[in-house]
């Protein structure tokens, strides 16, 4: 029972990181109907940048985190300007954008490899103080609590931004109808750029938390989460922010529960992706349908 409880707790934390990553994915998809396949590379670079700031610039993680998140957001602006904006008026913009985002992902990953090296690295010991609580046989670390707090904080901030802020309403308007948004006097290109900034900042934050949680960073750390992130947004409903959160948690929990129940990690991904197909059969549009970004 304690093993199961422990796995549930672990699944919650890893699911939170998946959710954070997937929310960034789904945000761009919800606004532009385009998959940004460079999102995982931004995730990686966010994590590596935080590591560099801690290791080489001597910053604490509390300073390095917001700076690296900002850096990831700026990468999002670069992505928009280089990979998507020039193609926006083309009739094949969905497909060509997909391809150019793959190209950007390769460029970002190569840069990461060149700058940070191809090896595995980790945050220096003591980056986050090690505090461990035991509650009825379940172990929770301070790091886990901090990760969950950071995820929840960012999710709440994003949801409120979309719901109440002027710019959030403009994002939803652009997501619903770009032509109508233009006629309302919304700077559509500016809103799209801001959406990329937000999306990539969240992706970068997920990368930092992922690196802290697993205590490992490398230029290819984005590979496994790229596909999982796609599965999560399909599971939750394409373009739906609450769906991505729910999908992330479901995915994380299914992974750790598979390990706990089967006793081996061999089946982990198989079960998680089988769950995806199962839910697709019952709810083809995902857990929360699509288009919910517009209703936020």
């Amino acid at each position, binding site marked *: 029972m304690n093993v199961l409880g422990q796995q549930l707790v672990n699944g919650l934390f890893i699911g939170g990181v998946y959710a954070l990553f997937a929310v960034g994915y789904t945000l761009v998809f919800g606004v532009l109907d385009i998959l940004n396949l460079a999102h995982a590379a931004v995730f990686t670079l966010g994590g590596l940048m935080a590591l560099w700031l801690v290791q080489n610039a001597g910053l604490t993680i509390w300073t390095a985190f917001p700076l690296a998140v900002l850096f990831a957001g700026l990468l999002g602006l670069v992505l928009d300007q280089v990979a998507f904006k020039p193609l926006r008026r083309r009739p094949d913009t969905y497909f060509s954008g997909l391809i150019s985002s793959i190209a950007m992902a390769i460029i970002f990953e190569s840069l990461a490899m060149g700058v940070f090296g191809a090896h595995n690295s980790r945050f220096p010991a003591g980056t986050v103080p090690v505090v461990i609580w035991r509650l009825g046989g379940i172990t929770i670390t301070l790091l886990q609590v901090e990760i969950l707090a950071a995820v929840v904080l960012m999710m709440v901030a994003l949801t409120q931004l979309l719901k109440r802020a*002027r710019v959030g*309403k*403009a994002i*939803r*308007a652009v997501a*619903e*109808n770009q*032509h*109508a*948004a*233009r*006629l*309302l*006097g*919304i*700077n*559509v290109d500016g809103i799209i750029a801001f959406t990329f900034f937000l999306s990539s900042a969240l992706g970068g934050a997920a990368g930092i938390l992922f690196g802290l949680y697993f205590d490992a960073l490398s230029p290819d750390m984005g590979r496994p989460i790229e596909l999982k992130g796609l599965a999560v947004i399909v599971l939750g409903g394409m373009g739906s922010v609450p769906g991505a959160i729910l999908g992330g948690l479901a995915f994380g929990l299914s992974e750790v529960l598979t390990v706990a129940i089967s006793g081996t990690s061999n089946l982990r991904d198989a079960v998680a992706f089988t769950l995806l197909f199962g839910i697709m059969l019952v709810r083809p549009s995902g857990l929360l349908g699509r*288009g919910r970004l*517009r*209703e936020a």
Partner: protein
Amino acid sequence: MLEVSGLCVSYGSVEAVRDLSLKVAAGSVVSLIGPNGAGKTTTLNALSGVVPVHGGRIMLEGRDITRLSSHQRVAAGVVQVPEGRLVLAGMSVRENLELGAYCRPRQDIPADIARMEERFPVLGQRREGLAGSLSGGEQQMLAMARGLMAHPKLLLLDEPSLGLAPLVVKMIFDLVLELKSQGQTILLVEQNVFQSLAVSDYAYVIENGSIVLEGPAAKLAADPAVARAYLGQAGPSASAPITGR
């Protein structure tokens, strides 16, 4: 107020609007009429800056706005209520109104919304409802109110009565008259030609992307060529072309 000269718009190799010139005097209502595909909506979209202009000049109150982007045009006072209404269906009525005032100072918005809800009571009653749940006529009211939220100097109305019940159509034209009496400058595109001319001061007839006829609205309404062109386009089975004139 508005002075357009030599306007040209092309989609690929197709010239949608060719050397079009028109004027809208401050405080007047001007109609742009013509058959489907003549370039009416394209002209309005060129004025709104949402389609690229290949030639000509657009002057608003003596200021050249030809090169301004769409959001700069709205800020300059050119506001379009588009064909098909294009309310943001997944957002609430109130949010639609708020977005209509996107280019306005924030502190003015609540008072403006209150005024719109007074003018269109249904928008107040359905404040938190989704715009997509409104009826067609209510959506048109919302689209008009949303356009007015921007405090337009020049209001561009594209087919405001399209697909609406006769009673609602009357409300729309009454609203145009009311706005006119308050000094609102309007450029009106309508398939409902005779009602449109009845509320207008001046009118232009557009065919194949060019102005072929212009004159005071009352004079055009009495012109047999207009009647012929209009009836010829609409055909006998089209919706409610006869308004007793």
